[in-house]
């Protein structure tokens, strides 16, 4: 636990308008908080601090209450998914083949844990149960790509290729670990 704030806290005017419309739609309903948060999450993909303040203000409840609810339910997130979203499989098969080590290495390299997004907005990590490629574990996906039979040592190389995007086009580069399932 630490004090976390970031560029993901702000709303642009267009988003603010959307948020206000959503609140208006549910205001007055019993237990309006969760439906409102759900709709905002759906609309923006996450719940920026500014949106939380807006909700708190309109429902006349403390910001701390809004935040408490958001962080309790896994379906809400405080940050948008990264440009490259990483799913780490921790299903049984992957787990016994060392998924934990892969996740640790990812945390190490990116400095974030599951459910979090790097400050530059490039990467996010989630843990999921079984990608349906059990024979190839441990498995991760990054956007549409699947990486199989991983060892922790493979991780820095894989991540480096995405962080280099912009200088060289990732798509055109040779890929060894890419596996089509």
């Amino acid at each position: 636990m630490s004090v976390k704030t970031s560029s993901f806290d702000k709303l642009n005017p267009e988003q603010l308008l959307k948020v206000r419309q959503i609140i208006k739609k549910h205001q007055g309903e019993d237990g309006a908080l969760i439906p409102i948060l759900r709709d905002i999450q759906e609309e923006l993909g996450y719940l920026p601090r500014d949106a939380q303040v807006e909700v708190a203000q309109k429902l006349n409840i403390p910001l701390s209450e809004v935040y408490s609810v958001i962080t309790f339910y896994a379906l809400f997130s405080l940050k948008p998914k990264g440009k490259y979203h990483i799913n780490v499989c921790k299903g049984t098969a992957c787990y016994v083949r060392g998924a934990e080590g892969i996740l640790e290495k990812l945390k190490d390299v990116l400095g974030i844990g599951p459910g979090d997004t790097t400050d530059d907005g490039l990467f996010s990590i989630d843990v999921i149960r079984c990608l349906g490629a059990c024979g190839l574990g441990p498995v991760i996906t990054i956007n549409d790509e699947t990486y199989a039979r991983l060892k922790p040592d493979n991780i820095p190389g894989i991540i480096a290729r995405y962080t280099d995007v912009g200088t060289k086009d990732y798509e055109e580069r040779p890929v060894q670990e890419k596996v089509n399932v």
Partner: protein
Amino acid sequence: MISLNINNQKVKVEEGATILEAAEKAGIKIPTLCYLKEINKVGACRMCVVEVEGAKTLQAACVTPAAEGMVVKTNTPFVRKARKKILELILSDHPFECLTCVRNGNCELQTLAENLGIREVGYQGEKTESYIDTSTPSIVRDPNKCILCRRCVSVCNEIQNVGILFPNERGFNTFIGPAYGALLADEPCSLCGQCVLACPTGALHEHEDIDRVWKAIEDPNKHVVVQTAPAIRVTLGEALGLPPGSIVVGQMVAALRRLGFDKVFDTDFAADLTIMEEGHEFLDRLKNGGKLPLITSCSPGWIKFCEHHYPEFLENLSTCKSPQQMFGALAKTYYAHKNRIDPKNMFVVSIMPCTAKKFECQRPEMVDSEYLDVDVSLTTRELAKMIKQAGINFDTLESEEYDAPLGISTGAGAIFGATGGVMEAALRTVYEVVTGEELKSLDFIDVRGLKGVKEAQVELPGITVKVAVAHGLSNAREVLEAVKRGEADYHFIEIMACPGGCIGGGGQPIPTNTEIRERRIKAIYEVDKGMKLRKSHENPAIKRLYQEFLGAPLQEKSHHLLHTCYAPRGKYTKS
């Protein structure tokens, strides 16, 4: 009534009572941790498990209702073993810092570990590692010592209705605190410290300033004076092992002298002065169409709450500083001058029932004497610690008297310590000033006691004055909302941030609960009854202060030294 059987003892209780309450009635103690009478009943810690005949698992006594014919066992080997396991699990994520912890000797977790006979902790778990929040001058939050009991959450939300502390995240990552784990200094927190009173451990405590006071006392160039708030004289004894409601005025004064303070003065003096200023302010607003209702301003927790959450009422606040600050401003001007002391060498300490007072004395505007008006504000608990550190045997001290002139006071000053007291003191003076007649009875019973919102009416020539008294911030909210809706036409409202008023302040001895509050309040009114003078305007030292120095209430000098202003602080402060 239902009857049940606990440890082979027959017990009769009201329907709806829990097993815990039934056991209590039978004189059987069940250990608890997250449970806090009247406040927190969440069944989170499972410390209170008991065997119930016919139930498959152990039941949490604090949330399980007693039922007709129930057979309960609270002290079987199985129960004892389970409780020990549960406590060991809690302790496996707890720093073992009892020797250096502020709650050493007054910690529920520590006591439980002792009572349950914990000698080692078998589990080796991951330990919470968190920053310690020392961002405010009032309250320290140390989540490393938090056992997630949620007592503070219930107090902050239900009793105070401020909404700062909530449980966040899930599982091992769960933490109790403000949104985003933000610092209290960045939150719309009143700093009332009610959460500190509720916390069973050292996870929430006052910012300790004892060493700064020792340092000033030891400095031969410093003239160190101390003032004691009205409520301290009925609570300090408790922190030193006496029963709740013990009146210890004389011993307290004696102890302060032995600690090495050069003069021992009384905030009650400044409370009398507050009545003079605020009483006249009220009459002035009444006569000249000023902003009404006038709302009292002695409680810095209430003031900060108002600045954050009800900025629309800032003009209603009395411009009077609190007695603590009036005292400081006068000590470094009037008193210093009279005694030819360079205010630069003065050090003013106050003993307060309050954590918010620490914040108040550091507000940047509180320097009207050209110096920090009050240098350090200590809680009742901190003073008790100083007395222990100095090796003073409190019980055997002979009574001593306050020093003059800032130690001379009336019963009206004393009752500031209880909810309704400021209003009662003000009414005693306002009535006599306006009518020129002597009050037949000085006791305004309607504004006394622990009812959340109290109302009264007083007949003055040409007008029936309607007053209200609220204590605890959720009650304050209730009154303000009623005023906003136009449903309440009060002229004068007293608001105290803490339930019961200052006798229940966030700096008071732990535990503080309803029963203890009642006993402290009773003691306060006994102090009042025992005073020769019971009306602020009859205080000879106050009369002299006006003659020699201030002129009259609300005059230029008073305005400069004794009055202040307020500014909105925002409801959703930065994060």
